[in-house]
């Protein structure tokens, strides 16, 4: 994988999660480790605890943002890395707007009220298995495959930053 040396755009990478709820903290942990890695200088790394409207102030005025979050569907192997773009959720945009200030509603609210929001938003989601137990340690399954997850996430971000067209996909880790 080609290493990207620098970027002219303002890029934000946000890890969302609770780092004392077992696997739930994988987003913040990944962001922490990515910040020490080979990604270009100038990228801003942040950790966040909340989604929805809370994120508007975090992402405004950046050109691009990549979220890293946990996902728990029970349908995929723990450690599966999913890549999403917001358009994946357009199909459910109006429905999800019904119920909550979810992220897409917040984005729409920001747009309508004139906020300068990122022109590119991508989401990396990692399938986890435990987010109901207070612990700063990952579950054994996630702990075991964490190095692979980190590598996959780093490669995914490099791909995103190299301006390749990203479609939603998922990669099953062995």
């Amino acid at each position, binding site marked *: 994988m080609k290493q990207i040396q620098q970027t002219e755009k303002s890029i934000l990478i946000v890890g*969302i*999660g*609770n*780092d*004392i*709820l077992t696997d*739930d903290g994988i*987003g913040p942990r990944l962001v922490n480790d990515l910040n020490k890695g080979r990604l270009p200088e100038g990228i801003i790394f942040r950790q*966040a*605890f*909340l*989604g*929805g*409207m*809370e994120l*508007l*102030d975090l992402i405004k005025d950046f050109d691009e943002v990549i979220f890293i*979050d*946990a*996902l728990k569907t029970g349908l995929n192997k723990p450690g599966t890395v999913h890549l*999403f773009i*917001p358009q*994946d*959720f357009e199909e*459910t*945009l*109006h*429905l*999800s*707007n*019904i*119920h*909550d*200030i*979810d*992220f*897409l*509603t917040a984005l*729409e*609210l*920001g747009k*309508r*009220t*004139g*906020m300068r929001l990122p022109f590119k938003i991508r*989401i990396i*989601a990692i399938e986890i298995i435990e*987010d*109901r*137990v*207070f*612990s700063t340690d990952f579950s054994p399954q996630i702990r075991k495959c964490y190095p692979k997850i980190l590598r996959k996430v780093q490669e995914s971000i490099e791909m995103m930053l190299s301006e390749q067209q990203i479609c939603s996909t998922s990669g099953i880790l062995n």
Partner: protein
Amino acid sequence: MSKITIDPITRLEGHGKIEIFLNQDGSVDNVYFQVPELRGFEKFCEGRPVEELPTIVTKICGVCPGCHHMASGKAVDAVFGVEPTPTAKKIRELFYMAHFIHSHIAHFYALAAPDFVVGPTSNPSERNILGVIAKVGLEIGGEVIKQRRIAQEIQAMIGGHQTQVIMNIPGGVKKGITEEQRDDLVKKAEGFIHFSKFSIQLFKDVVLGNKDYVDIILNGPYSLKLHSMGLVDSNNKVNFYDGKVRVVDLEGKELYKYSPNEYTEFVEERVEPWSYLKFPYLKKIGWKGFVEGQDSGVYQATPLSRLNAADGMATPIAQQEYDAMFATLGGKPVHATLAMHWARLIELIYSAEHCLELSQDPDITGKDLRAPLTKIIGEGVGIVEAQRGTLTHHYWTDDKGMVKKVNLIVGTTNNNAAICMSLKKAAQGLIQKGIPATEGTLNMIEMAFRAYDPCFSCATHSLPGQMRMIVNFRDKDGNVLKTIKRG
């Protein structure tokens, strides 16, 4: 018997599920409200220095981290047998007013207003905050975002971070407020007052100006006659940070008034086999079941309960609005569930006014930020009012201050029984025999729930698009007859 499942509840932070069981004729037999269990918090805390807990507990809940931080800070003060300095206490309270302001703004505009400004049975695609600003104007939408953000910035400035707060230490706070920061705070507080007055006027115009809404509030299936709990100051005025817990009965007569360290004499928790969440009740009355009335042990701890339990508000504009609400709704106490929204806006005004008072207080820029620690008591209770109810933290430590045991009664837990009862009453009133429940009907049932501003959130981030609602209609054998998915 048929079953309707609403899962997860819409516009709820965290996850929950409502189960509605129907009789053969389609009428409502019973309603169960359930939330998933989070495990191991006590064990997680055991063996840690107790002064670490105020920072750790902010991660229990992303919605009200500041409340846990304050209750924890007070419990830790009690463990060390120390009172914060006057300046430290005022700085804590100033932070806390900003915490209430951001939360109450978010609840009203994002969670409550869609039902009233857009309409409880209106097109679901418009019944959200975007629908609200479409009605009231983009400028107001921008102001909602701005005022909420300013409140968050104040929390970050005082607390070190708006959610992962680190300000409280035993006997005080880590850092003070400069004169320059004070000038900025005064301007921001004046902005809060202006916006909170606008918000309550909007409520009056939209809700009180609509006879149908007033009828729903007062005569719909949304009333619940229970005892009221809230923290009061030495003048029996509403206080979010400090004071004694006061409980009044259905007539507004004081039943109890106790200090935080006496709470175990007055409140006990009941376990039901179908719920992970406990059911606190008034210990001296005892558990009489999920029943209303003077003899019931069930109480409410909500914004409306706080106003019911107090003799008034400690700031002038909030007091005027307090008087106006009770005059309009027939005097104290009020038992109309949907009036919680009105009470919440009165609390928003109080928070804004008190934010200004504290910002202008000469002590707020004082340098005496921490009282000396001289002993370890080994046990401490801290009680504050969270946005959604009375919040209790109780810690036990060894003689070195290492945590041995932790007990929490969080705001929403106080209202667990009341929420179940409100849902049942709304479902029984709204679901008619032989008539399938519509989306609008289900939303109106949820309105009984949303009024409590409940929060079961420990991992509050959610993947975009994840929030959904599933309604299952089942026959007596549990077979799914029909499924409605929303989201």
